[in-house]
């Protein structure tokens, strides 16, 4: 392990790494490896080696695998190196940070050693030098070093104050001033405590200054919990200090992303600490103040970030849906355990007479013959309701329970009678039904744990688990395997009657009923608020929530894809039928077509705002067509073109000059055809809509290069066919197809000449 300058640093680090791995694998090697490494990482070594060494020391002194005894010997042997790393190394934050962390782990161990071995002044001098060195570089050091200094100070405070014995007994957390005898030659408890108080003040300074350096604030807050809990002399100071700290001070500064992170972090960390304290010690004398502080923080945070409202709403919804679980349980418990001093029952429930009974008799509890004969159905229903409501309101719970139990027991008796009668029929030796719960499979041995992550972890869990196990158990043998087939009660095999055959008419009727039910929810579903529309891009899920948009996605997919791959098989049959009287769409696609038809109607009902739905739908159709084509099946029906044309025709009827949505529609649907664009020509007959048609085409020319030629062709045809559209069309054409108009003019002129010539010839 000796360092030789001949070995390159990379190689040395690799060797050190291997040594570390050995120690991790077997803790017995720790002592030897740490001591062997010490000369390699001394003050004269290279920076890489020192960094590695400091981090290895920090890891070794903190490792939970070593016992306190092993750690003592290890710690005492590294003090010298640690001291030199801290003193020699002014310039590397990583070395300092790790060395101070190592010192923080070493401090309580050395402290304990000195308590029991007061002769060992050398160790005490070393650790004292390390301590004063760390406390000296604390101020003005880079942030990571200061972090470690905070933690070091916390360990010193922990060791030098009196414990209440509530801490865990590991990692040296239990080493405290209480262990120091009053007459210790090296350690004076009063001086120790005074030093601890001073250090604590220094630690808390960052809170008192209301610092906005979240890193230091968080680091401080996150190591205070154990002090408050286990070092009573510090807790008042710390709690007061935290309660006066305002983590939201940054709210007044500009809300940069970083500031938001800082503020959220400090607020949440402060709140977590306070909640942790409250939870561990609900009877804390500061409980009320802490509660108030936490609530105030949460309110301020909600105001600043304006996000709590949303969360609350969700919680309320959940409560409305599932009910208040806790309350239900309480109520159940109350009714299950009636008061100990139940009053004497004034109601006497007479036993039923033997023999068959009417249902009315079972529920009749009085033996007054007059009342028994009274027919309650004579009373009007509203009157009955009033009487029942009032009676239930004033009725003693115990009386009601008693009466209900009476009726229940009567029912039990009747049931038992029926069963005995049945049993008499049943052949001897009929199997007893296996117990519903097999106790052997039941226990799973889950002990309760006190973590409040799952607030309603209780006995219900066990039932859950039992059911789980039962699900897994081999199926219970069916009863009829045991039962004698000749028994009067034996059941023969039961087969469902075959479903009635469906002919095409019925199928199409049912399809349209089904389709109309698909559209049912649309009217009641809410559209998402305009503010909440978050753009998720490709991460968007088709239907995540139950709102109108999601449902429409479902509907369009039902329309386009639900019978994908089934249609083409039907197609030839239809072809064959074509000569017949009725040509009917194939059976499999009736549902689709019905849904499409309804979707079409739905869009046209209010087509301007629903143009998005139309685009979405056509995109789905197009996609589906592409898939169909890829399957390569002959004669497979393609739907995109048909429905795009129908939709466009539908809009055309209603279109006005202001309907820019047309432009958008044409721009967004996945494929344009000559025929589709040809429909625009009808708009050109009307001077009002002429501009709109031409703008839409121009937009396509400019923004959709793949269909540019198509669109220009259409403009050309418009130029030819519509006289009044010529000026505008010519303008576009001269820009995008220079020379075309002139060419056409010449062509027309030539035709005119030819025509004229003909005319002249005829005239002549």
């Amino acid at each position, binding site marked *: 392990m000796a360092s030789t300058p001949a070995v390159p640093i990379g190689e040395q680090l690799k060797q050190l790494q291997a040594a570390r791995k050995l120690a991790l694998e077997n803790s017995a090697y720790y002592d030897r490896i740490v001591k062997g490494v010490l000369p390699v990482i001394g003050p004269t070594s290279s920076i890489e080696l020192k960094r590695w060494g400091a981090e290895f020391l920090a890891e070794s002194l903190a490792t939970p695998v070593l016992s306190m005894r092993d750690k003592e010997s290890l710690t005492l042997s590294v003090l010298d190196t640690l001291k030199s790393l801290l003193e020699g190394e002014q*310039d590397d934050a990583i070395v300092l940070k790790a060395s101070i962390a190592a010192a923080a782990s070493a401090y309580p161990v050395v402290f304990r050693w000195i308590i029991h071995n007061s002769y060992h002044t050398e160790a005490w001098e070393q650790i004292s030098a390390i301590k004063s060195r760390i406390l000296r570089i604390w101020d003005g050091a880079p942030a990571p070093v200061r972090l470690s200094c905070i933690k070091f100070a916390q360990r010193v405070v922990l060791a030098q104050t009196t414990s209440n014995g509530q801490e865990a007994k590991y990692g040296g957390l239990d080493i405290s001033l209480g262990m120091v005898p009053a007459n210790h030659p090296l350690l004076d408890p009063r001086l120790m405590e005074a030093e601890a108080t001073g250090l604590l003040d220094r630690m808390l300074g960052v809170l008192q200054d209301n610092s906005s350096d979240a890193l230091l604030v968080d680091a401080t807050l996150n190591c205070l919990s154990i002090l408050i809990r286990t070092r009573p002399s510090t807790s008042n100071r710390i709690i007061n200090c935290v309660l006066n700290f305002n983590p939201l001070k940054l709210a007044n500064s500009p809300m940069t992303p970083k500031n938001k992170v800082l503020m959220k972090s400090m607020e949440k960390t402060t709140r977590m600490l306070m909640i942790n304290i409250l939870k561990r010690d609900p009877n804390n004398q500061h409980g009320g103040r802490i509660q108030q502080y936490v609530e105030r923080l949460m309110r301020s945070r909600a105001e600043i970030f304006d996000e709590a409202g949303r969360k609350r709403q969700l919680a309320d919804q959940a409560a409305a849906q599932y009910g208040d679980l806790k309350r239900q349980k309480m109520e159940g418990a109350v009714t299950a355990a009636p008061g100990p001093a139940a009053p004497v029952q004034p109601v006497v429930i007479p036993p039923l007479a033997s023999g068959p009974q009417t249902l009315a008799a079972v529920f009749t509890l009085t033996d007054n013959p007059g009342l028994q004969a009274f027919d309650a159905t004579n009373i009007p229903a509203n009157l009955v309701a009033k009487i029942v409501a009032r009676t239930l309101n004033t009725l003693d719970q115990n009386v009601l329970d008693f009466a209900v139990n009476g009726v229940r027991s009567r029912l039990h008796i009747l049931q038992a009678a029926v069963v005995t009668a049945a049993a008499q029929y049943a052949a001897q030796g009929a199997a007893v039904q296996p117990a519903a719960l097999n106790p052997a499979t039941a226990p799973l041995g889950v002990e309760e744990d006190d973590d409040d992550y799952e607030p309603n972890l209780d006995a219900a869990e066990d039932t859950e688990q039992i059911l789980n196990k039962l699900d897994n158990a081999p199926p219970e043998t069916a009863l009829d395997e045991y039962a004698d087939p000749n028994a009067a009660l034996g059941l023969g095999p039961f087969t469902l009657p075959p479903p009635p055959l469906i002919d095409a008419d019925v199928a199409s009727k049912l399809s349209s009923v089904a389709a109309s039910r698909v559209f049912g929810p649309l009217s009641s579903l809410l559209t998402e608020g305009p503010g909440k529309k978050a753009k998720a891009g490709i991460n968007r899920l088709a239907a995540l929530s139950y709102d109108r948009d999601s449902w429409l996605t479902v509907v369009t997919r039902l329309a386009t894809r639900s019978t994908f791959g089934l249609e083409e098989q039907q197609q030839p049959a239809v072809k064959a039928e074509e000569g017949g009287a009725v040509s009917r769409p194939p059976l499999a696609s009736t549902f689709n077509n019905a849904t499409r038809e309804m979707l079409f109607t739905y869009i046209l009902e209010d087509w301007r705002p629903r143009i998005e739905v139309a685009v979405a739908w056509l995109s789905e159709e197009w996609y589906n067509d592409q898939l169909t084509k890829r399957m390569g099946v002959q004669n497979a029906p393609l739907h995109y073109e048909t429905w795009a044309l129908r939709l466009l025709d539908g809009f055309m009827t209603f279109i006005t000059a202001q309907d820019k949505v047309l432009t958008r529609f044409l721009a967004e649907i996945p494929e344009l055809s000559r025929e589709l664009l040809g429909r625009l020509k009808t708009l050109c007959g009307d001077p009002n809509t002429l501009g709109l048609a031409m703008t839409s085409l121009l937009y396509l020319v400019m923004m959709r290069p793949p269909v540019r030629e198509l669109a220009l062709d259409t403009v050309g045809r418009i130029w030819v066919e519509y006289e009044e559209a010529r000026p505008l069309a010519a303008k576009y054409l001269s820009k995008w197809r220079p020379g075309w108009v002139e060419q056409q003019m010449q062509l027309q002129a030539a035709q005119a000449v030819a025509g004229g010539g003909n005319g002249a010839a005829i005239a002549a």
Partner: protein
Amino acid sequence: MDTINGNAASASAAPAAPAQQNGHREDPGGFKLKFCTVCASNQNRSMEGHLRLALANYPVISFGTGSLVRLPGPTITQPNVYKFNETSYDSIYRELEAKDPRLYRANGLLNMLGRNRNIKWGPERWQDWQVGMPRVKKETDKGFEGMEGGVADIVITCEERCWDAVIDDLLNRGSPLNRAVHVINIDIKDNHEEASVGGRAMVDLADSLNKVAKEEREKVGAAAFDSGSGAGRASFDERVPEVIGEWQERWPNLPATWTLAWF
């Protein structure tokens, strides 16, 4: 591909090693932060993150903070419940497959468990984790390389209450190791799609953090200590909130919380 959420991320954060489509990428070597992902049951979100980070060559381990491992069952009131640390992914897989293969394949559980059993043995509970216990016997775990020391530099939780549970647990432990750890929450909804998005976001965050940490390591000597103020001097720890702030701008749908805690 993903234009809105996170495209800028891979462009700006990891110019050196752009993530490929399936997450595999070349190991650039050098310094690496050690990660720990945490969700409720150590099944979906933390495991997605575990896998993604491991594929991106980071040392990573993962935990759940729940009292038990809970997976959806046939109805909302009949979850499948298992114990942490004692049940392997493989045994859960086989059990569910025996119960109702159609249901559990359709809801993605078997797929998820199949993935998980190739990552590590079984779900582990955060509260039972002995921080600093060497993890040398776990060579087959994905992301094992570099995790031998059993500590992490960054803990990423996938839900606010998991973050709360982690912080609360660390406060209770009393920080015996004196080791600083950044605990970052990313709110990810518990479904397969969101977990996948969250996994990508985690790798983006890890890349951004690691880049900053690497820069700190590369500064040697006086440059690191007394070279005035400004971003050039700022250490890794100081720059974490800044990195998270920038990350948050790229992933606005995954609200994040951060603190510096102690192991």
